[in-house]
Structures are given as structure tokens and as C-alpha cells.
């Protein structure tokens, strides 16, 4: 039996899910489309961004939306030297936990910076909006250093 040639081929398996957002995440995305960022007030007064549907302590339904600032502070970050195709930026960038002004918990997003050394815990950043907003987290294209 002769050796067969090696056959290989790119193959993509796609799960084309859609998800319903519910009223709370739906509101968050609707506000993003309008270039606003909203959080929600928890029972202990903390403002949670992105808003969550139920209180983290009491599990009570939450409904008090709070608009937060478009600037904030880096709480922690990880520098991505070699972005992958699925990443929001194709040049080196940082994933960061960003505590927006008026929020009490940080939110994850990407930060554009020329070099890792430009970024530090405590650095101030501001949201950069996409040219066209559609009601998705990528409406905030990234954050940039102030």
C-alpha cells in the first residue's frame, strides 16, 4: 500500500447564536447606541457597570439606572503583545479593568496605547466611540489615555 498524500483543509464550525438581552442589558446597549454609559444602583448604593439584573447581595431585582462618566481609571491591566484575529485591535493593546467616574466597580474593556510603558494602574482613560454605534459593547471602540 503506497503512502497517501497528506490532505488538509481549513474548516470552520460556526454557531450563529443570537441572544435576547432582557430589559437591563438591553437598556445598557440602547444607551451605548446613544453614546451614553449607564450602570445600575445596587441595594448597598454601589453603582455597577455594566448594569446587572439582580442585586449581588440580596438578589432583589434592580432597576435604578445611573449614568456614569465617559472617563475613568485603570484598576488593573494586561498588555497584549500579539493580538489575535478575534481581538478588538490588531496592534498591541491592553485589556484593562476600568473604574468609570461615578461607578463603584470596574468594567473590562480595551485600552489603546503606543507602548506598554505608557499604561499604569491609576492612569486616566476616556472612551473612544465607534463612528457608527449599533447597540453593542464595541460601540466603545476602545479607551485611550487622557
Amino acid at each position, binding site marked *: 500500500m503506497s503512502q497517501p498524500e*497528506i490532505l*488538509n483543509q481549513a474548516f470552520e464550525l460556526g454557531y*450563529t447564536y443570537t441572544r435576547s438581552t432582557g430589559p437591563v442589558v438591553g437598556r445598557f446597549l440602547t444607551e451605548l447606541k446613544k453614546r451614553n454609559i449607564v450602570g445600575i444602583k445596587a441595594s448597598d448604593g454601589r453603582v455597577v457597570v455594566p448594569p446587572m439584573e439582580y442585586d449581588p447581595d440580596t438578589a432583589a431585582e434592580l432597576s435604578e439606572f445611573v449614568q456614569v462618566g465617559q472617563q475613568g481609571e485603570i484598576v488593573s491591566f494586561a498588555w497584549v503583545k500579539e493580538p489575535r484575529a478575534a481581538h478588538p485591535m490588531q496592534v498591541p493593546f491592553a485589556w484593562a479593568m476600568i473604574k468609570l467616574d461615578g461607578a463603584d466597580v470596574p468594567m473590562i474593556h480595551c485600552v489603546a496605547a503606543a507602548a506598554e510603558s505608557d499604561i499604569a494602574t491609576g492612569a486616566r482613560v476616556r472612551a473612544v466611540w465607534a463612528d457608527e454605534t*449599533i*447597540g453593542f459593547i464595541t460601540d466603545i471602540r476602545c479607551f485611550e489615555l487622557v
Partner: protein
Amino acid sequence: MSQEKNMSDDQDVITGIKAPVYLKYNFTAGAAPARFLAQIKKGVLTGQRCPKCSAVYVPPRGSCASCGVATEEEVVLSDKATVQSFTIVSIPIPGNPIQPPYIIANVVPDGANISFIHLLSECVNEEIHIGQRVQAVWKPEAEWDYAMDNIRYFKPLDEADVPVDRIGKLPVTGLEG
């Protein structure tokens, strides 16, 4: 991530998002499937026979699933086959270009002992039944590639049905052989 418009109601309130997951593979066929594909490029269906239990597998995986031994002997199969089971698909599947209703069936080629999945066509869907004899309809030879869809579909043959207990046990020469 999707850059298309998300789902929204009349007031432009977002009610849903697209959240697809794409898994990208580089698929390498392996020795036995590669030989199977090289043969199907020539318009020939081949299986492999287990040296222990004699079961003929198609497409071959290079081993016998029940005995756990390597399979090497290649067996040329017929492109005539028997319907072992089937389903009439009435609901469109996103991304699938075939318009329902259509039939997908497990067919066992003559000379093999297990079935593979393929389309049935040139038939009255409601008349297809288990034990039905079918034959491959091939693409024009110029289009043959390393692909199962060198066979466009299977179409009914005007032959006697195969009794259920003989489905998957026919020699390469068919029911009368």
C-alpha cells in the same frame, strides 16, 4: 463580533444581540480517510475490512471500532446502496443552500457494513422507505475532487427492497449477487 445592526423594537430599544461563535480548524484527513478521498477523486468508493471481524467500514478510519485493531485491506465498493434510515427535512437550516423539503439518509453501499449520510433526490419524498435501493448520481468527472460531494445525491433504483435484516450485509454485487 457582529458589526451588523442588532435587534431592536420600534422605539429603537435593543432587545437582542448577535453572539456567534466560530471555531476555526485545520483539518488533516489522516492516512485512511486520505486514501478514501484519493479514491473518491477517481470516482471510486472504497472501504477497509477489519482483519478480525471482517466488517467493512466506509469512510474508513483506519481501525475497527468494535475490535480495536488496525484496518488495512482496502475494498472497492459499489455505488449502489440501500437506505438504512432517512429523514425528510422540512425546516431550512441557516447557511444550508439546499431548499427543504429534502431527504437525508443513511445509506449502506453494497459491500460495506456501515452507512454514511447523504442526500436522496429524483424521488417522491413520501415514497422513500427503509430498504429502498438507491444509486449514486455523480458530478461530471471534470469536477471530481477530494470530496464526498463528488456524489451529488443518491436516486432510487428500480430493484426489490432489501429485507431489514439484510441491510448492511449485502455483497458488493448487490442483493441478487
